[in-house]
């Protein structure tokens, strides 16, 4: 149940690790994240010096691992020296990629030595005392504060969730609630705010993005989103909640065509957990959450929740 705050779950002093995917495709996710952490008075640092983690190019397989480890040695050190030592990642790929890099940097290997040598050349010192979490875990840890400040509830809303593969399946022992086959971090946050969270077949299936696939092999994206939505429509939800900008892109942008092919007439708004939290806390759905950037209109959900001022 949601009341169980995972062990070692930092509630404050966050170093915000911004995501280049979120910033490129749904900047409202990032804006919402800042809005939520400010509104619940969680101490956080939004450091412009932080670079991209290169996680997506790492998975596409177009950037060697060594420069990735070196760049994240710098990101980890920036957080560690900032005093805000709880790195909170907006993106599941940043989350797992940062953990991969930290493991290498904390061990002993030729790759570690070369990455640290590059740091030295750049006049930087490696400093590693940080924790790494995903923002959905920060919401779960701060659920009481979110509930206390929420202007709207999710009572009467049927929700389904999709947890990012790079959150659940890489560091699969670290899933904060549930397990990697059935992670329930977002579920717990949503049910804590009154939603009825329902299961569906293919819950743990990929979102269909596959990084380069959505551009170069859209057959993969088409087939996977179809398989995913075949399961989701069985649950007949009011909304689908994600934790990753990439998953949001694939499931949101492909939905219209897939549902049409499946003969399902009702839209299913796809929102990222940060956008939803911000909206429930009273943020402007357009100017903070950026719902105009979504492929599937989010307004029907807002009307159900009772949010005023929708266009």
């Amino acid at each position: 149940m949601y009341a169980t705050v995972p062990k070692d779950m930092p509630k404050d002093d966050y170093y915000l690790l911004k995501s280049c995917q979120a910033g490129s495709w749904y900047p409202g996710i990032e804006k919402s994240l800042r809005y939520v952490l400010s509104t619940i008075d969680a101490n956080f640092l939004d450091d412009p010096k932080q670079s991209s983690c290169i996680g997506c190019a790492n998975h596409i397989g177009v950037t060697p691992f060594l420069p990735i480890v070196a760049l994240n040695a710098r990101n980890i050190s920036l957080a560690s020296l900032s005093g805000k030592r709880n790195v909170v990642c907006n993106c599941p790929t940043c989350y797992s990629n940062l953990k991969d890099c930290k493991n290498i940097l904390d061990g002993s290997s030729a790759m570690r030595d070369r990455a640290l040598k590059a740091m030295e050349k750049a006049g930087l010192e490696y400093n590693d005392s940080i924790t790494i979490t995903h923002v959905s875990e920060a919401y779960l840890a701060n659920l009481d504060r979110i509930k206390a400040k929420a202007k709207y509830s999710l009572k009467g809303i049927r929700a389904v969730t999709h947890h990012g593969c790079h959150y659940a399946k890489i560091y699969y022992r670290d899933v904060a609630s549930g397990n990697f086959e059935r992670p329930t971090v977002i579920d717990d946050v949503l049910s804590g705010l009154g939603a009825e969270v329902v299961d569906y077949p293919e819950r743990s299936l990929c979102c269909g993005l596959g990084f380069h696939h959505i551009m170069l092999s859209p057959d993969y994206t088409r087939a996977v989103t179809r398989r995913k939505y075949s399961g989701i429509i069985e649950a007949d939800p009011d909304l689908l909640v994600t934790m990753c900008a990439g998953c949001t892109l694939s499931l949101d942008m492909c939905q219209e065509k897939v549902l049409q092919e499946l003969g399902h007439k009702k839209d299913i708004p796809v929102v990222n957990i940060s956008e939803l939290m911000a909206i429930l806390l009273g943020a402007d759905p357009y100017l903070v959450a950026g719902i105009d950037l979504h492929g599937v209109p989010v307004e029907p959900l807002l009307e159900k929740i009772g949010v005023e001022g929708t266009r």
Partner: protein
Amino acid sequence: MVPPELDPIDERVGPQSGLNRCMQCGKCTASCPAAFIFEGFSPRDIMLRAMKGEIESLVMGEELWQCAQCLSCAARCPRDCSPAGVIQALRIVALRSNPNIDHMRMIEDGVKVNLMKTGQTILPDTLVLPNDLLGPRTRKRYKASAKHRRELGYRAEDSRRVEIPEEDLEKIRILLRETDYC
């Protein structure tokens, strides 16, 4: 093009990869959404060929690029192997030795330019969604995204609201150069 061999310092083909302990049970292939869709794609088979040292045929093949990196294989492997990690390492070898993957080298170059210029991997214009994945209403909304970005205070050309300061970009460039990336 150089003859293909695995990079000895790439940890993803080191002891953690499972190349020394994969027992060919096939749980990875059974779990794999790409294997479900692409005929002939099998993470189990990729592990077998990598264990046998058939690096050249692996890096010349199309199937290396069919994996979508969901990591279901690694999560479900009873021996904690990571076929997806081995694939990542093989892709880097393929970029240097397979003449038929210019489309991937284009992505490689695009990422390099983005990183050196802005410290970002993905920028708003890096990924363009193919029209035929989108329905008509979605297409219309997607086309308006640059305008809505601006309303949120984000520039069209950067994934960051506030760009990385120049002196920090210079540190980032040194790290990329000192690791033989650029």
